[in-house]
Protein backbone atom coordinates (compact mmCIF):
# COMPACT_ATOMS: atom_id res chain seq x y z
CA UNK A 1 0.00 0.00 0.00
CA UNK A 2 1.43 3.40 -0.94
CA UNK A 3 1.40 6.34 1.46
CA UNK A 4 -1.26 7.90 -0.73
CA UNK A 5 -3.47 4.81 -0.46
CA UNK A 6 -2.88 4.73 3.29
CA UNK A 7 -4.00 8.32 3.62
CA UNK A 8 -7.07 7.57 1.55
CA UNK A 9 -7.97 4.62 3.81
CA UNK A 10 -7.37 6.78 6.91
CA UNK A 11 -9.68 9.43 5.47
CA UNK A 12 -12.38 6.82 4.87
CA UNK A 13 -12.11 5.60 8.47
CA UNK A 14 -12.19 9.16 9.85
CA UNK A 15 -15.19 9.98 7.66
CA UNK A 16 -17.03 6.92 8.99
CA UNK A 17 -16.02 7.09 12.65
CA UNK A 18 -14.58 10.54 13.43
CA UNK A 19 -17.89 12.32 13.86
CA UNK A 20 -16.40 15.50 12.42
CA UNK A 21 -18.46 18.63 12.00
CA UNK A 22 -16.60 19.34 8.78
CA UNK A 23 -16.37 17.07 5.75
CA UNK A 24 -12.89 15.53 5.89
CA UNK A 25 -12.56 16.23 2.17
CA UNK A 26 -12.29 19.91 3.10
CA UNK A 27 -9.46 19.30 5.55
CA UNK A 28 -5.76 18.97 4.78
CA UNK A 29 -3.58 16.06 5.87
CA UNK A 30 -2.14 18.15 8.71
CA UNK A 31 -5.43 19.63 9.90
CA UNK A 32 -6.14 19.09 13.60
CA UNK A 33 -9.10 16.70 13.65
CA UNK A 34 -9.83 17.41 17.31
CA UNK A 35 -10.22 21.09 16.46
CA UNK A 36 -12.57 19.95 13.68
CA UNK A 37 -14.86 18.42 16.27
CA UNK A 38 -13.54 14.88 16.76
CA UNK A 39 -14.15 13.87 20.37
CA UNK A 40 -11.96 11.55 22.43
CA UNK A 41 -14.69 8.91 22.16
CA UNK A 42 -14.79 9.24 18.38
CA UNK A 43 -11.00 9.00 18.22
CA UNK A 44 -11.22 5.58 19.89
CA UNK A 45 -13.63 4.45 17.16
CA UNK A 46 -11.15 5.75 14.61
CA UNK A 47 -8.39 3.70 16.27
CA UNK A 48 -10.51 0.57 16.07
CA UNK A 49 -11.43 1.32 12.48
CA UNK A 50 -7.75 1.72 11.58
CA UNK A 51 -6.78 -1.49 13.38
CA UNK A 52 -9.39 -3.26 11.31
CA UNK A 53 -8.63 -1.58 8.00
CA UNK A 54 -4.85 -2.06 8.23
CA UNK A 55 -4.92 -5.32 10.20
CA UNK A 56 -2.66 -3.85 12.86
CA UNK A 57 -2.78 -3.35 16.62
CA UNK A 58 -1.74 -0.07 18.13
CA UNK A 59 0.38 -0.78 21.21
CA UNK A 60 -0.84 0.97 24.36
CA UNK A 61 1.94 3.55 24.25
CA UNK A 62 0.59 4.77 20.88
CA UNK A 63 -2.94 5.32 22.18
CA UNK A 64 -2.40 9.03 22.55
CA UNK A 65 -4.09 12.11 21.33
CA UNK A 66 -1.07 13.24 19.30
CA UNK A 67 -1.01 10.01 17.27
CA UNK A 68 -4.58 10.53 16.05
CA UNK A 69 -4.71 14.27 15.71
CA UNK A 70 -4.28 14.44 11.92
CA UNK A 71 -4.28 12.25 8.83
CA UNK A 72 -0.51 12.63 8.57
CA UNK A 73 0.06 11.76 12.23
CA UNK A 74 -1.96 8.56 11.80
CA UNK A 75 -0.17 7.74 8.53
CA UNK A 76 3.21 8.10 10.28
CA UNK A 77 2.10 5.87 13.13
CA UNK A 78 0.75 3.22 10.79
CA UNK A 79 3.90 3.30 8.65
CA UNK A 80 6.09 2.82 11.71
CA UNK A 81 3.90 -0.05 12.91
CA UNK A 82 3.82 -1.81 9.55
CA UNK A 83 7.60 -1.45 9.26
CA UNK A 84 8.01 -3.42 12.51
CA UNK A 85 5.64 -6.23 11.48
CA UNK A 86 7.75 -9.22 10.37
Amino acid at each position, binding site marked *: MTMEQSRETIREVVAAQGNLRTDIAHLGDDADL*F*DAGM*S*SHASVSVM*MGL*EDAFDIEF*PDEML*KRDVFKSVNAMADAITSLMATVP
Partner: protein
Amino acid sequence: MTFRVEERQGLTEAAWEIGANVSAPAADDVDANARFPEETRAALAQAKILSALIPAELGGGGASLSDVSGAIRALAFHCASSALMLAMHSNEVGQLVQFGDTPGLRALAGEVAEKQLLIANANSEVGLGGDATRSNCAVEEIEGVPSLNKHALACSYGQHADLLSATARRRPDAEPNDQLVALMRRESLVIEEAGEWNTMGLRGTCSAPLRFSAKIDPALVYPVDFAYMGEHGMMARWLIMLSSVWVGLAEAAVDQAHRHVRKAARRSVGTLPPSATRLAELQSKLLQSRGALAVALDAYARAAAEDHLDDTALLVTVRGLKVATSKLLVDIASEAMSIVGIMGFQRGSGSLERIVRDAHGSVLMVSNDRYLQANAVALTVLKRI
Protein backbone atom coordinates in the same frame (compact mmCIF):
# COMPACT_ATOMS: atom_id res chain seq x y z
CA MET B 1 -7.78 3.48 62.37
CA THR B 2 -6.25 6.50 60.77
CA PHE B 3 -2.81 7.24 59.45
CA ARG B 4 -0.08 5.67 61.47
CA VAL B 5 1.83 8.45 63.20
CA GLU B 6 4.95 7.77 61.11
CA GLU B 7 2.88 8.31 57.94
CA ARG B 8 1.73 11.71 59.12
CA GLN B 9 4.76 13.69 58.17
CA GLY B 10 5.42 16.95 56.40
CA LEU B 11 2.44 18.22 54.48
CA THR B 12 0.16 15.46 55.74
CA GLU B 13 0.96 16.30 59.34
CA ALA B 14 0.42 20.01 58.74
CA ALA B 15 -2.95 19.33 57.10
CA TRP B 16 -3.87 16.93 59.89
CA GLU B 17 -3.23 19.65 62.48
CA ILE B 18 -5.41 22.08 60.54
CA GLY B 19 -8.09 19.44 60.11
CA ALA B 20 -8.16 18.56 63.78
CA ASN B 21 -7.87 22.07 65.20
CA VAL B 22 -9.64 24.22 62.61
CA SER B 23 -11.79 22.19 60.20
CA ALA B 24 -13.29 19.65 62.62
CA PRO B 25 -14.62 22.21 65.13
CA ALA B 26 -16.30 24.12 62.27
CA ALA B 27 -17.47 21.12 60.24
CA ASP B 28 -20.95 20.82 61.71
CA ASP B 29 -21.64 24.52 61.23
CA VAL B 30 -20.27 24.43 57.68
CA ASP B 31 -22.59 21.51 57.00
CA ALA B 32 -25.67 22.90 58.74
CA ASN B 33 -25.47 26.25 57.01
CA ALA B 34 -23.98 25.07 53.70
CA ARG B 35 -21.32 27.70 54.17
CA PHE B 36 -17.80 27.93 52.82
CA PRO B 37 -15.13 26.68 55.28
CA GLU B 38 -13.45 30.07 55.44
CA GLU B 39 -11.41 29.25 58.56
CA THR B 40 -9.85 26.21 56.87
CA ARG B 41 -8.99 28.26 53.83
CA ALA B 42 -7.27 30.84 56.05
CA ALA B 43 -5.34 28.14 57.92
CA LEU B 44 -4.27 26.44 54.66
CA ALA B 45 -3.09 29.82 53.38
CA GLN B 46 -1.16 30.52 56.56
CA ALA B 47 0.56 27.14 56.34
CA LYS B 48 1.24 27.84 52.62
CA ILE B 49 -0.49 24.61 51.66
CA LEU B 50 -2.40 26.40 48.87
CA SER B 51 0.89 26.63 46.96
CA ALA B 52 2.23 23.19 47.87
CA LEU B 53 2.38 22.05 44.23
CA ILE B 54 4.14 25.19 42.98
CA PRO B 55 7.88 24.67 42.47
CA ALA B 56 10.18 26.19 45.10
CA GLU B 57 11.78 28.52 42.53
CA LEU B 58 8.39 30.18 42.06
CA GLY B 59 7.89 30.48 45.80
CA GLY B 60 5.83 27.34 46.35
CA GLY B 61 6.31 24.23 48.40
CA GLY B 62 7.65 22.00 45.62
CA ALA B 63 5.50 19.12 46.91
CA SER B 64 4.71 15.94 45.00
CA LEU B 65 1.21 14.76 44.12
CA SER B 66 1.63 12.06 46.75
CA ASP B 67 2.34 14.73 49.41
CA VAL B 68 -0.75 16.71 48.44
CA SER B 69 -2.87 13.56 48.29
CA GLY B 70 -1.83 12.87 51.90
CA ALA B 71 -2.80 16.39 52.94
CA ILE B 72 -6.21 16.11 51.25
CA ARG B 73 -6.82 12.74 52.87
CA ALA B 74 -5.88 14.11 56.30
CA LEU B 75 -8.24 17.05 55.88
CA ALA B 76 -11.07 14.82 54.61
CA PHE B 77 -10.87 12.85 57.83
CA HIS B 78 -12.16 15.98 59.58
CA CYS B 79 -14.23 17.80 56.95
CA ALA B 80 -14.94 16.50 53.45
CA SER B 81 -15.98 19.93 52.11
CA SER B 82 -12.67 21.45 53.24
CA ALA B 83 -10.77 18.59 51.62
CA LEU B 84 -12.69 19.00 48.37
CA MET B 85 -11.78 22.68 48.34
CA LEU B 86 -8.09 21.78 48.69
CA ALA B 87 -8.42 19.07 46.00
CA MET B 88 -10.16 21.35 43.49
CA HIS B 89 -7.79 24.25 44.16
CA SER B 90 -4.72 21.99 43.95
CA ASN B 91 -5.97 20.67 40.64
CA GLU B 92 -6.01 24.23 39.29
CA VAL B 93 -2.55 24.85 40.73
CA GLY B 94 -1.22 21.63 39.19
CA GLN B 95 -2.61 22.73 35.83
CA LEU B 96 -0.99 26.16 36.18
CA VAL B 97 2.38 24.61 37.03
CA GLN B 98 2.34 22.01 34.25
CA PHE B 99 0.79 24.00 31.42
CA GLY B 100 1.23 27.65 32.38
CA ASP B 101 4.45 27.94 30.43
CA THR B 102 4.03 31.60 29.45
CA PRO B 103 5.43 34.71 31.17
CA GLY B 104 1.93 35.78 32.29
CA LEU B 105 0.98 32.44 33.80
CA ARG B 106 4.44 31.91 35.35
CA ALA B 107 4.07 35.27 37.06
CA LEU B 108 0.61 34.28 38.20
CA ALA B 109 1.93 31.04 39.74
CA GLY B 110 4.42 33.15 41.71
CA GLU B 111 1.59 35.41 42.80
CA VAL B 112 -0.56 32.44 43.90
CA ALA B 113 2.34 31.31 46.10
CA GLU B 114 3.11 34.75 47.46
CA LYS B 115 -0.46 35.77 48.24
CA GLN B 116 -1.88 32.26 48.74
CA LEU B 117 -4.63 32.94 46.19
CA LEU B 118 -7.49 30.46 45.97
CA ILE B 119 -8.52 29.21 42.49
CA ALA B 120 -11.96 27.85 41.61
CA ASN B 121 -13.10 26.47 38.29
CA ALA B 122 -16.22 27.04 36.28
CA ASN B 123 -15.77 24.43 33.57
CA SER B 124 -19.26 22.94 33.62
CA GLU B 125 -22.00 24.72 31.77
CA VAL B 126 -25.78 24.75 31.89
CA GLY B 127 -27.22 22.76 28.98
CA LEU B 128 -24.36 20.28 28.66
CA GLY B 129 -25.36 17.89 31.45
CA GLY B 130 -22.05 17.95 33.29
CA ASP B 131 -19.93 17.23 30.20
CA ALA B 132 -16.94 19.53 30.68
CA THR B 133 -15.33 18.44 27.41
CA ARG B 134 -17.68 20.71 25.45
CA SER B 135 -18.65 24.36 25.77
CA ASN B 136 -21.50 26.40 24.38
CA CYS B 137 -20.13 29.73 25.53
CA ALA B 138 -17.36 31.33 23.50
CA VAL B 139 -14.83 34.09 23.90
CA GLU B 140 -16.15 37.02 21.87
CA GLU B 141 -14.75 40.40 21.00
CA ILE B 142 -16.87 43.08 22.61
CA GLU B 143 -15.72 46.55 21.61
CA GLY B 144 -12.39 45.04 20.67
CA VAL B 145 -11.88 43.30 24.02
CA PRO B 146 -12.06 39.51 24.35
CA SER B 147 -14.91 38.79 26.74
CA LEU B 148 -16.71 35.82 28.17
CA ASN B 149 -20.23 35.32 29.48
CA LYS B 150 -20.86 31.92 30.99
CA HIS B 151 -23.61 30.19 32.91
CA ALA B 152 -21.76 27.55 34.93
CA LEU B 153 -23.78 24.53 36.03
CA ALA B 154 -21.86 24.21 39.29
CA CYS B 155 -19.01 26.34 40.49
CA SER B 156 -17.59 25.19 43.80
CA TYR B 157 -16.70 28.11 46.12
CA GLY B 158 -16.76 30.40 43.08
CA GLN B 159 -17.92 33.34 45.20
CA HIS B 160 -14.99 32.86 47.59
CA ALA B 161 -12.11 32.38 45.18
CA ASP B 162 -9.50 34.95 44.12
CA LEU B 163 -9.23 33.47 40.63
CA LEU B 164 -11.72 31.66 38.44
CA SER B 165 -10.60 29.27 35.73
CA ALA B 166 -13.09 28.52 32.97
CA THR B 167 -13.35 26.72 29.67
CA ALA B 168 -14.96 28.31 26.63
CA ARG B 169 -14.99 27.83 22.90
CA ARG B 170 -12.00 29.67 21.46
CA ARG B 171 -14.09 31.78 19.07
CA PRO B 172 -17.81 32.11 18.33
CA ASP B 173 -17.37 29.83 15.27
CA ALA B 174 -15.22 27.19 17.03
CA GLU B 175 -16.38 23.61 17.60
CA PRO B 176 -17.81 22.72 21.05
CA ASN B 177 -14.67 20.75 21.97
CA ASP B 178 -12.23 23.43 20.74
CA GLN B 179 -11.91 24.83 24.25
CA LEU B 180 -9.43 27.28 25.67
CA VAL B 181 -8.97 27.73 29.39
CA ALA B 182 -8.75 31.25 30.80
CA LEU B 183 -8.04 32.46 34.30
CA MET B 184 -9.93 35.49 35.51
CA ARG B 185 -9.19 37.62 38.53
CA ARG B 186 -11.97 38.19 41.02
CA GLU B 187 -11.90 41.92 40.46
CA SER B 188 -12.45 41.50 36.71
CA LEU B 189 -15.55 39.34 37.20
CA VAL B 190 -19.20 40.16 37.53
CA ILE B 191 -20.67 37.14 39.30
CA GLU B 192 -24.28 36.37 39.99
CA GLU B 193 -25.48 33.27 41.82
CA ALA B 194 -27.95 31.52 39.52
CA GLY B 195 -29.37 28.89 41.82
CA GLU B 196 -28.87 27.39 45.24
CA TRP B 197 -26.68 24.65 46.66
CA ASN B 198 -28.92 22.86 49.10
CA THR B 199 -27.69 19.30 48.91
CA MET B 200 -27.77 16.28 51.21
CA GLY B 201 -24.03 16.37 51.68
CA LEU B 202 -20.77 18.08 50.72
CA ARG B 203 -22.63 21.23 51.58
CA GLY B 204 -19.61 23.37 52.37
CA THR B 205 -18.33 23.23 48.80
CA CYS B 206 -20.98 25.83 47.91
CA SER B 207 -21.18 24.50 44.35
CA ALA B 208 -24.12 26.62 43.21
CA PRO B 209 -24.70 27.48 39.55
CA LEU B 210 -23.18 30.84 38.64
CA ARG B 211 -23.53 33.33 35.86
CA PHE B 212 -20.49 35.47 35.28
CA SER B 213 -19.00 37.81 32.78
CA ALA B 214 -15.42 38.96 32.46
CA LYS B 215 -12.94 40.55 30.16
CA ILE B 216 -10.35 37.98 29.19
CA ASP B 217 -6.70 38.90 29.71
CA PRO B 218 -4.83 37.11 26.88
CA ALA B 219 -1.84 36.75 29.24
CA LEU B 220 -3.94 34.51 31.47
CA VAL B 221 -5.12 32.13 28.73
CA TYR B 222 -3.39 28.74 28.67
CA PRO B 223 -1.23 28.09 25.60
CA VAL B 224 -2.79 24.62 25.13
CA ASP B 225 -6.43 23.63 24.97
CA PHE B 226 -8.52 21.96 27.67
CA ALA B 227 -8.65 18.47 26.13
CA TYR B 228 -4.86 18.46 25.74
CA MET B 229 -4.38 19.33 29.42
CA GLY B 230 -6.92 16.73 30.47
CA GLU B 231 -5.18 13.96 28.59
CA HIS B 232 -1.64 15.00 29.55
CA GLY B 233 -1.79 14.76 33.33
CA MET B 234 -4.51 17.10 34.57
CA MET B 235 -7.29 14.50 34.65
CA ALA B 236 -5.02 11.95 36.32
CA ARG B 237 -4.04 14.41 39.06
CA TRP B 238 -7.63 15.51 39.55
CA LEU B 239 -9.04 12.03 39.96
CA ILE B 240 -6.25 11.05 42.35
CA MET B 241 -6.87 14.13 44.50
CA LEU B 242 -10.64 13.64 44.37
CA SER B 243 -10.27 10.00 45.37
CA SER B 244 -7.99 11.07 48.23
CA VAL B 245 -11.03 12.85 49.68
CA TRP B 246 -13.06 9.65 49.49
CA VAL B 247 -10.30 7.59 51.11
CA GLY B 248 -9.93 10.11 53.96
CA LEU B 249 -13.68 10.17 54.53
CA ALA B 250 -13.80 6.36 54.58
CA GLU B 251 -11.02 6.44 57.19
CA ALA B 252 -13.15 8.79 59.31
CA ALA B 253 -16.13 6.41 59.12
CA VAL B 254 -14.02 3.41 60.04
CA ASP B 255 -12.43 5.37 62.88
CA GLN B 256 -15.84 5.90 64.48
CA ALA B 257 -16.74 2.23 64.13
CA HIS B 258 -13.34 1.29 65.55
CA ARG B 259 -13.80 3.52 68.62
CA HIS B 260 -17.21 2.00 69.20
CA VAL B 261 -15.92 -1.58 69.01
CA ARG B 262 -13.01 -0.85 71.35
CA LYS B 263 -15.41 0.61 73.88
CA ALA B 264 -17.73 -2.40 73.57
CA ALA B 265 -14.76 -4.77 73.99
CA ARG B 266 -13.71 -3.00 77.21
CA ARG B 267 -17.19 -3.54 78.59
CA SER B 268 -17.08 -7.28 77.94
CA VAL B 269 -13.47 -8.31 78.44
CA GLY B 270 -13.09 -11.98 77.55
CA THR B 271 -16.04 -11.98 75.14
CA LEU B 272 -15.51 -10.51 71.72
CA PRO B 273 -18.38 -8.23 70.79
CA PRO B 274 -20.12 -9.31 67.53
CA SER B 275 -19.39 -5.89 66.04
CA ALA B 276 -15.66 -6.69 66.16
CA THR B 277 -16.04 -9.12 63.26
CA ARG B 278 -17.98 -6.51 61.28
CA LEU B 279 -15.13 -4.10 61.97
CA ALA B 280 -12.62 -6.62 60.65
CA GLU B 281 -14.67 -6.83 57.46
CA LEU B 282 -14.74 -3.06 57.26
CA GLN B 283 -10.97 -2.92 57.64
CA SER B 284 -10.60 -5.13 54.57
CA LYS B 285 -12.76 -2.72 52.54
CA LEU B 286 -10.77 0.25 53.73
CA LEU B 287 -7.64 -1.59 52.66
CA GLN B 288 -9.08 -1.91 49.13
CA SER B 289 -9.72 1.80 49.07
CA ARG B 290 -6.26 2.72 50.36
CA GLY B 291 -4.66 0.15 48.08
CA ALA B 292 -6.36 1.54 44.98
CA LEU B 293 -5.09 5.01 45.85
CA ALA B 294 -1.56 3.72 46.39
CA VAL B 295 -1.61 1.89 43.03
CA ALA B 296 -2.79 5.02 41.23
CA LEU B 297 -0.22 7.27 42.95
CA ASP B 298 2.48 4.81 41.94
CA ALA B 299 1.24 4.71 38.33
CA TYR B 300 1.20 8.51 38.23
CA ALA B 301 4.71 8.80 39.69
CA ARG B 302 6.05 6.32 37.13
CA ALA B 303 4.29 8.04 34.22
CA ALA B 304 5.58 11.42 35.40
CA ALA B 305 9.14 10.13 35.77
CA GLU B 306 9.03 8.67 32.24
CA ASP B 307 7.33 11.77 30.82
CA HIS B 308 4.30 9.67 29.81
CA LEU B 309 1.50 11.46 31.62
CA ASP B 310 -0.56 11.10 28.43
CA ASP B 311 -0.62 7.33 28.89
CA THR B 312 -4.14 6.00 28.24
CA ALA B 313 -3.59 3.21 30.77
CA LEU B 314 -2.97 5.85 33.47
CA LEU B 315 -6.28 7.52 32.66
CA VAL B 316 -8.06 4.18 32.81
CA THR B 317 -6.45 3.51 36.19
CA VAL B 318 -7.45 6.83 37.75
CA ARG B 319 -11.02 6.64 36.44
CA GLY B 320 -11.28 3.17 37.95
CA LEU B 321 -9.82 4.59 41.17
CA LYS B 322 -12.51 7.25 41.43
CA VAL B 323 -15.28 4.72 40.81
CA ALA B 324 -13.80 2.24 43.29
CA THR B 325 -13.09 4.68 46.13
CA SER B 326 -16.50 6.34 45.88
CA LYS B 327 -18.45 3.09 45.80
CA LEU B 328 -16.38 1.65 48.63
CA LEU B 329 -16.96 4.83 50.62
CA VAL B 330 -20.75 4.49 50.44
CA ASP B 331 -20.47 0.87 51.60
CA ILE B 332 -17.97 1.68 54.32
CA ALA B 333 -19.99 4.60 55.71
CA SER B 334 -23.20 2.53 55.81
CA GLU B 335 -21.50 -0.43 57.43
CA ALA B 336 -19.77 1.80 59.97
CA MET B 337 -23.21 3.06 60.93
CA SER B 338 -24.50 -0.47 61.40
CA ILE B 339 -21.52 -1.22 63.68
CA VAL B 340 -22.07 1.87 65.79
CA GLY B 341 -25.78 1.03 65.92
CA ILE B 342 -28.51 3.39 66.94
CA MET B 343 -25.96 5.88 68.30
CA GLY B 344 -24.62 6.21 64.78
CA PHE B 345 -28.12 6.96 63.53
CA GLN B 346 -28.35 9.98 65.84
CA ARG B 347 -28.04 13.40 64.35
CA GLY B 348 -25.59 16.00 65.50
CA SER B 349 -22.04 16.44 66.56
CA GLY B 350 -19.85 13.36 66.76
CA SER B 351 -22.35 11.18 64.90
CA LEU B 352 -21.80 9.46 61.59
CA GLU B 353 -24.59 11.43 60.00
CA ARG B 354 -22.52 13.97 58.10
CA ILE B 355 -20.08 11.33 56.90
CA VAL B 356 -22.91 9.14 55.56
CA ARG B 357 -24.51 12.07 53.73
CA ASP B 358 -21.19 13.31 52.34
CA ALA B 359 -20.32 9.76 51.24
CA HIS B 360 -23.33 9.59 48.94
CA GLY B 361 -22.11 12.69 47.13
CA SER B 362 -18.92 10.87 46.13
CA VAL B 363 -20.58 8.78 43.42
CA LEU B 364 -22.39 11.82 42.02
CA MET B 365 -19.86 14.61 42.29
CA VAL B 366 -18.82 13.88 38.78
CA SER B 367 -20.96 10.87 38.03
CA ASN B 368 -19.32 7.47 38.10
CA ASP B 369 -21.24 6.58 34.95
CA ARG B 370 -19.32 9.20 32.99
CA TYR B 371 -16.01 7.62 33.99
CA LEU B 372 -17.24 4.08 33.44
CA GLN B 373 -18.36 5.00 29.93
CA ALA B 374 -14.99 6.57 29.18
CA ASN B 375 -13.22 3.46 30.44
CA ALA B 376 -15.60 1.18 28.52
CA VAL B 377 -14.56 2.96 25.33
CA ALA B 378 -10.84 3.02 26.16
CA LEU B 379 -10.78 -0.67 27.09
CA THR B 380 -11.94 -1.63 23.60
CA VAL B 381 -8.56 -0.54 22.25
CA LEU B 382 -6.27 -0.88 25.27
CA LYS B 383 -4.26 -4.10 25.16
CA ARG B 384 -3.38 -4.40 28.87
CA ILE B 385 -5.51 -3.62 31.92
